[in-house]
């Protein structure tokens, strides 16, 4: 719960009763303590500028300024994976900030060959989505062999396979120490401290300066909160929660409750990212993907999969990108000329805007129609056709500019341009802007494009 300017003022020298001798001293660079408090509330000033604030007040202020869900950072080879720091329950309220890390689990007990093969496959995997390369974040190495040396070898093999993040799933101190040595230079997550072993694991995490996951049984949030409070008091502050829920129903309840408690009740002991294991609650890999999908939409910070296939990885990476897209900043498509189905010089040329959904709607219809075509995407500042037209971002001048700046004229032998039906009014003006071109008014809705092309081209 952030403090208001007036709350902060009461903690500064000027807000004390009786007044502090240094009230409104101006040394911070602001005319009064109240003005400084307002700047602090707006996060436009630093508390360190005030030399006279009491230690108790400073502690309260920094506590209030801490995010309700702690930011946890893993690292590997100079890359970082940050999760946490979320501020809302629903993405439309603001946005979701830090996409959950997607990991794949390997067991050291399955043998080095198997571990290496999966690690290489996961490390290499990258898929393009609207020009963005998407990839998985890392591997979770589970200690199933009972041999610390074998575990360290497995971790070393995973490190060698690529530059991915690591989760060390082991509760044996010797195995963890060996694995941490093998993963030197990375910041892995240790999984997981429980009521029985937390002292030993907290010591390991503290010495290695790595975050520690904490597990309580069966969605028991009270047990979980008590455990994290104990571990934080012992000096390990970078924690990750496993509420122990594994199914669709109980996971949704547990993760929703944790997010609400952290945000709405400012419960510090549950103000950490959550780790999930959808494979443990699923009967097959499709169910696992569906449960991982729930965890992407509903509040996970790390998702550890048991099955890796390119098809499910692609779907989950796209879902993660979609859900974590800032609703205020829609994905824009790069303006330019897009070929559909290997079009030739006689294929139709159509223009639309660079709002991603507009582009996708048109592209989908063209693709599903099976007909070749050239899709010219004009820079309309990421707005849909009607909005852009109303805002003057999709007028004759802009469309003509898009035609001239693209290679359209050299790619098609004809001089015919199809414009969206919603901007039929631009036809005359466009013919003036583009001498020698014939303007055709297409359908208003993308869905009618295949029929239009069948009839009119």
């Amino acid at each position, binding site marked *: 719960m952030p403090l208001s300017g007036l709350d902060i003022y009461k903690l500064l020298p000027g807000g004390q009763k009786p007044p502090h001798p240094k009230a409104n001293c101006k040394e911070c660079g602001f005319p009064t303590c109240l003005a400084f408090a307002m700047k602090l509330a707006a996060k436009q000033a630093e508390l360190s500028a005030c030399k006279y604030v009491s230690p108790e007040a400073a502690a309260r202020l920094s506590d209030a300024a801490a995010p309700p869900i702690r930011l946890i950072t893993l690292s590997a080879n100079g890359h970082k994976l940050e999760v946490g720091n979320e501020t809302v329950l629903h993405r439309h309220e603001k946005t979701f900030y830090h996409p959950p890390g997607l990991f794949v689990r390997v067991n050291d007990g399955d043998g080095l060959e198997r571990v290496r093969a999966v690690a290489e496959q996961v490390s290499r995997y990258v898929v393009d989505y609207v020009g963005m390369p998407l990839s998985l974040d890392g591997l979770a190495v589970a200690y199933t062999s009972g041999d610390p040396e074998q575990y360290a070898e497995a971790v070393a093999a995973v490190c060698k396979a690529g530059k991915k993040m690591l989760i060390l799933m082991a509760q044996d101190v010797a195995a963890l120490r060996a694995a941490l040595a093998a993963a030197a230079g990375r910041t892995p997550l240790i999984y997981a401290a429980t009521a029985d072993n937390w002292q030993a694991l907290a010591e390991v995490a503290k010495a290695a300066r790595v975050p520690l996951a904490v597990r309580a049984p069966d969605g028991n949030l009270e047990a979980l909160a008590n455990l994290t409070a104990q571990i934080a008091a012992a000096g390990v502050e970078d924690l990750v929660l496993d509420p122990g829920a594994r199914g669709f129903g109980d996971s949704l309840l547990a993760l929703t409750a944790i997010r609400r408690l952290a945000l709405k009740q400012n419960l510090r002991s549950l103000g950490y990212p959550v780790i999930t294991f959808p494979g443990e609650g699923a009967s097959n890999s499709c169910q696992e993907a569906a449960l991982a999908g729930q965890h992407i939409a509903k509040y996970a910070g790390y998702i550890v999969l048991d099955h890796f296939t390119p098809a499910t990885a692609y779907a989950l990476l796209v879902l993660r990108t979609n859900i974590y897209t800032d609703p205020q900043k829609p994905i824009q498509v790069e303006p330019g000329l897009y070929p559909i189905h290997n079009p030739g010089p006689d294929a139709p040329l159509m223009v639309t805007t660079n709002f991603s*959904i507009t582009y*996708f709607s048109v592209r989908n219809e063209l693709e599903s129609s099976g007909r070749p075509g050239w899709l010219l995407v004009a820079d309309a500042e990421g707005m849909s056709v009607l909005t852009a037209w109303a805002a003057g971002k999709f007028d004759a001048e802009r469309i003509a500019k898009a035609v001239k700046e693209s290679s359209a004229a050299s790619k098609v032998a004809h001089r015919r341009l199809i414009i969206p039906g919603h901007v039929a009014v631009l036809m005359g003006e466009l013919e003036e802007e583009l001498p020698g071109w014939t303007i055709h008014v297409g359908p208003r809705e993308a869905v009618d494009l295949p029929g239009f092309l069948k009839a009119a081209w």
Partner: protein
Amino acid sequence: MPVTIPQTKYAGKVREVTIGATRAEGGTRSRTVTVGGETTLPFLLHEGEMPHPPAVAVEICDRRPADWSPLLYEAWGEAVNDPATWARAAEAAGADLVLLHLTGPVQRADGSTPTAQEARQAVRRVLEATGLPLLVFGPGIADLDNELLVAVAEEAAGERLVLGVCEDKNYRTLVAAALAHGHLVDGRTPMDVNLAKQLMILIRDMGLPLERVLMDPSTGALGYGIEYGYSVMERLRLAALNGDAMTQQPMLVTPGEEAWRLKEAKVGDGGVPAAWGDWAERAITWEVLTATTLLHAGADVVCLRHPASVAEVKAVIARLMAGGKDGK
């Protein structure tokens, strides 16, 4: 320290809508399907009611559509050539509802335009083949939809069909047909909270009780705008629970149609990047993940195309409806 699970209580409630009518109710269905009635966000069963599980509608066509993915022809086999056989196959696949999509010139291999007589016949045959409640959607061309659906409404009078899709350009005709012959409508608007509300008001003002209206906020498939549909649905459902009467309709979405028209679903191995993985696995995962994600945003009816997806989505719904007991 004690931790109390927060429970949000809402003043509003989603309307209950019953699809289909049994003989006693003036139709011929062997059962009806009721959706809606929620007093909480999806599947948060510890703080409110969700009296009916979301329903799965399986989409079939009046004749073999020309533009479906090869994987779907493979899955349904000969059934795609006959709506009655297809309806029985859909029921066998676990459908709660059957969505009969009437094909138009674009979806037909011969480019022919369906007649009202053909539409009547197709609906009659499907009604005879299955006892499940039926949704009937037109080809998506406003004038043609009106012509076909008015005939369908008359042919199936009293069956409490869901007629769709009912949009701002044709709602008058479809709502009038629903009023005259005892049906429901699927009111679709393009991913916008205010437009959705506005259409509900227009439909209500024509006299159709809101207990006979599904709200269809439009679906974007995974990767193709799902986040817009998802957030519009979350906003609509929150508005409904907070008492906005014009948003308190059960929501219908069409993840099957949206997911199966994509390159991801239509183009097989070889024609797409290797990172896209196995074709069938990708296509089915795409449909399932689109559907289950939208269920979490408040979908009450999900329309699907592939029988394997139906099984997966139904399994997910059953587990979500188990609430906190799931996974134990």
